[in-house]
């Protein structure tokens, strides 16, 4: 079939998003175009973390970078509701009047809060708690309010109550059942939680029926319960959720007894072209109000569309959350409904702890196995207990130790490989070990590769523990030493050099290393000395430390020739300099190419030609571009305010200033930057190690972006800065990087590896919490003051120049291994098959 098919996804919530993500990753988009129709005004966001909207804003919740999928075959519509599905025609009608056809339809419409039919529920001041817009409205109403009530004391109700407290309201919780969180907690757990919550000043009413929302002039005034009235200016309904299955009902698809689209084990409805996933679906007749089962359904559906046989059976309903700073967890058979189940309870009313394990005899007849449990007040054991439920592991001799306060340490108690460690993303211990064996060297990398720990974060301590134990087992003490010669990390080496004031490799290796070094430690020490001490890279004792590119101040090419890249600060260049470059390239027969970094590269120079080439370039006013160095490369610019009709600042001038400021700075890896004149971002600053984007009020500074192998968008470090502050922050950022990053670690992985990540950088660079700011700036000032052009200095020094000869005893004879052919009117390297013998008679240097 040649025509491309189309999948239409209705709903862009958490599960719809995961479906698209999995479809792209698993190649479903090779055969299908995907159209996503989302009713909310924004693209998918982290609803699980909804409450943090008040603290962090909407951007922090976004699940998509820049509101788009990197795959162009996915089309995303927001603010559009699907109003009707025609199963016979296979079309969906949209609220904007459009109608789209589908080959496969995926319902991912989630659920809606249930609002009980009490009188007064439509009064102004009544809300639900589901979307960012709901929260915006609640925040707005709270400005004028002093008292709030949440109807519903379940998981979401308490979350909403938490939010009202944060908004400064005197808050009541009204729950019909005799205890809080009735679905997850038993009486003991509910009581412990109640004590915590009342201790925080909330008023909890259990066994309480709401009879009416009382109002005056169309506005909420309070709540009438059977037992009396509560005053309230804000009422939030959180009395459960109902699957949004109306589209399916109207289309004639079967729905479950309690709602939810009926689907089979592959999430397919009765109509073979229609699927339902997430909270709107009812696999096995059950609707799941948690994200993890939804994610699994999304994966299963993608798999089924690819012809796979993955199944969604029953889901783990375990939950762990922090409510008003109280840890609560409930997992497995928390209510001990399994025949023969026993409960082990530890309760400490003073400490506010309630912990229960549900156990049964192990089928092997030996010991006990864990069926489930409830933890209130301290849920640190959850991460290691929950996976034990799924595995058939026998419990240790004294299982109560698992819940006694002393057993706080994360224990993985020998989980089997199949044990699920991350429930949000269904990652087993085996998958984590496989990631470490495939090259992950820390937990952060495992999280990136497997997603374990990337959603709710609960499993993070366990992931870390598994990774570290695994390394320890292999006797690999997560070794970060540089090489066999130095038992130090690059950062430790930096400190050693700074503390002792070393100026040469010999001093460093004699005092702290062994042997005579190698191609790993020598360039690293050279880079550290260059940043701390300065001095020319080709100075005595220095040049032999350099990687080949630095050793000849040019980039080695495949046939042994070199390329030459003059600096073009900010990408701005005069016609005269362009002509000079053109003339040099022509006269020396060099292949010429515009680089990806806004400058010009000339290839095919023989080593002995480099001084003559640079003589011409330096005379024409150019200097080294350090394309060969682990150093600042380019500060890419856009044309900015000076020409562009959208520009709000002079980005070109700033880019030039920054490039000239940081040129020559030797760093753990290369450093690239960009400056854009407005948010259109033509300079792609957010793919750079540091990027600056103009705003009406100043400059936004982004850090730790990366193109290359593992592209990462730079993250916002500080906003609306004036130029001076901007420069001081960049000074600090770069010097902090030079000091603490690993050898050949770009800024993105470096920031990711810091304990605290970007927040750590912010503390050091913006808040100056270590008091390092002025020291870092002074170090940069030294660098700026000491800068000299490496090529100019080389041309002035006969000793350095003496090295640029093809043969020490025949300086005029070119290396016959370097040969070229022509392609598209330019020079290109020709491969050689073996050593070439130079036949000519050569006068060899006689002893002098």
């Amino acid at each position: 079939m040649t025509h491309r098919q189309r999948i239409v996804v209705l709903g862009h919530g958490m599960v719809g998003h995961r479906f698209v993500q999995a479809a792209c990753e698993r190649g479903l988009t090779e055969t299908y175009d995907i159209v996503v129709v989302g009713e909310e005004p924004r693209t998918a966001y982290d609803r699980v973390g909804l409450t943090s909207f008040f603290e962090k804003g909407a951007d922090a919740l976004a699940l998509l970078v820049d509101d788009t999928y990197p795959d162009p075959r996915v089309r995303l519509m927001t603010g559009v509701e699907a109003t009707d599905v025609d199963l016979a025609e296979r079309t969906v009608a949209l609220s904007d009047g459009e109608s789209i056809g589908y080959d496969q339809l995926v319902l991912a419409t989630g659920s809606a809060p249930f609002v009980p039919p009490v009188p007064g529920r439509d009064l102004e001041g009544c809300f639900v708690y589901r979307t960012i817009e709901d929260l915006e409205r609640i925040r707005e109403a709270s400005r004028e309010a002093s008292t709030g009530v949440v109807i519903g004391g379940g998981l979401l109700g308490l979350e909403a109550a938490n939010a009202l407290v944060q908004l400064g309201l005197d808050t009541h919780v009204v729950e019909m059942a005799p205890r809080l969180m009735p679905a997850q907690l038993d009486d003991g757990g509910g009581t412990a939680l109640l004590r915590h919550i009342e201790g925080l000043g909330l008023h909890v009413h259990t066994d309480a029926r709401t009879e009416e929302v009382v109002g005056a002039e169309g506005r909420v005034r309070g709540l009438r319960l059977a037992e009396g009235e509560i005053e309230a200016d804000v009422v939030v309904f959180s009395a459960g959720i109902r699957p949004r299955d109306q589209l399916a009902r109207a289309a004639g698809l079967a729905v479950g007894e309690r709602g939810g689209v009926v689907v089979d084990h592959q999430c397919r409805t009765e109509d073979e072209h229609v699927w339902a996933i997430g909270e709107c679906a009812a696999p096995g007749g059950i609707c799941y109000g948690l994200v993890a089962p939804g994610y699994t359904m999304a994966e299963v559906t993608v798999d089924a569309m690819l012809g796979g046989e993955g199944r969604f059976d029953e889901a783990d309903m375990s939950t762990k959350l922090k409510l008003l700073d109280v840890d609560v967890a409930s997992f497995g058979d928390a209510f001990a409904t399994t025949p023969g189940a026993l409960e082990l309870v530890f309760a400490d009313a003073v400490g506010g702890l309630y912990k229960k394990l549900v156990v049964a005899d192990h089928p092997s007849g030996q010991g006990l196995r864990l069926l489930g449990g409830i933890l209130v007040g301290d849920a640190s054991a959850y991460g290691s207990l929950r996976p034990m439920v799924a595995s058939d592991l026998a419990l240790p001799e004294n299982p109560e130790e698992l819940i006694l306060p002393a057993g706080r340490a994360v224990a993985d108690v020998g989980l089997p490989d199949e044990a699920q460690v991350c429930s949000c993303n269904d990652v087993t211990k085996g998958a984590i070990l496989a990631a470490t064996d495939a090259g992950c060297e820390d937990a952060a990398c495992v999280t990136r590769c497997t997603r374990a720990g990337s959603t709710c974060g609960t499993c993070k301590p366990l992931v870390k523990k598994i990774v570290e134990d695994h390394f320890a087992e292999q006797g690999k003490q997560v070794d970060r030493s540089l090489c066999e010669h130095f038992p130090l990390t690059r950062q430790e080496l930096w400190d050693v050099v700074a503390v002792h004031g070393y100026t040469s490799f010999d001093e460093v290796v004699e005092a702290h290393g062994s042997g005579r070094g190698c191609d790993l430690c020598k360039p690293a020490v050279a880079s550290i000395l260059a940043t701390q001490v300065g001095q020319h890279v080709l100075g005595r004792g220095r040049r032999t430390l350099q990687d080949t590119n630095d050793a000849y101040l040019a980039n080695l090419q495949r046939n042994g020739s070199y390329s030459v890249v003059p600096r073009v600060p900010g990408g701005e260049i005069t016609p005269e300099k362009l002509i000079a470059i053109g003339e040099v390239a022509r006269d020396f027969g060099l292949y010429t190419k515009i680089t990806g970094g806004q400058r010009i590269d000339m290839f095919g120079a023989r080593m002995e030609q480099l001084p003559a080439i640079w003589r011409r370039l330096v005379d024409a006013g150019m200097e080294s571009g350090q394309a060969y160095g682990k150093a600042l490369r380019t500060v890419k610019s856009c044309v900015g305010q000076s020409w562009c009709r959208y520009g709000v600042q002079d980005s070109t001038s700033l880019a030039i200033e920054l490039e000239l400021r940081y040129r020559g700075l030797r760093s753990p890896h290369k450093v690239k930057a960009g400056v854009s004149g407005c948010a259109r971002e033509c300079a792609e600053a957010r793919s750079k190690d540091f990027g600056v984007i103009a705003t009406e009020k100043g400059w936004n500074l982004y850090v730790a972006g990366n193109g290359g192998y593992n592209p990462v968008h730079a993250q916002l470090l500080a906003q609306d800065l004036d130029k001076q502050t901007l420069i001081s922050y960049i000074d600090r950022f770069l010097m902090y990087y030079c000091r603490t990053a690993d050898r050949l670690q770009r800024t993105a992985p470096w920031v990711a590896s810091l304990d605290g990540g970007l927040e750590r950088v912010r503390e050091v660079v913006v808040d100056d919490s270590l008091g390092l700011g002025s020291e870092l700036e002074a170090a940069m000032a030294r660098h700026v003051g000491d800068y000299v052009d490496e090529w100019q200095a080389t041309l002035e020094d006969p000793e350095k120049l003496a090295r640029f000869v093809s043969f020490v005893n025949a300086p005029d004879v070119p290396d016959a291994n370097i040969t070229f052919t022509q392609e598209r009117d330019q020079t290109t390297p020709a491969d050689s098959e073996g050593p070439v013998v130079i036949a000519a008679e050569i006068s060899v240097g006689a002893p002098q």
Partner: protein
Amino acid sequence: MSGEGEWVAVCGIDRIDPEGGVAALVHGEAVAVIRTYDDVVYALSNYDPFSHASVLARGIVGTRTLDGDEVPFVASPMHKQAFDLRTGQCLDDEAVSVPTYEVRVSEGQVLIGGRREAT
């Protein structure tokens, strides 16, 4: 083609940095002449069999501990394979080695002799 027994003076030892190298042309062949930290001079073919470029003299010189022995090596500047300066044996690939040359230092001059027989 290698002129046995014919010693060729290529340069003064001062022209070579300690732990550095120079390329010399000896009987039409490109030879990497490398001086170690303790002033021992080694000569091996300049041709890197991995990258097919004549570049070994431009590599980083160091030591690697193998079976308790400190082996002096030069790492190809192209893709970093290390070669034992004494034997030309590649330390990263048993099957590969480069030819070595007789070498001696006399009155401050470095002299290169014939190609050694492969062992």
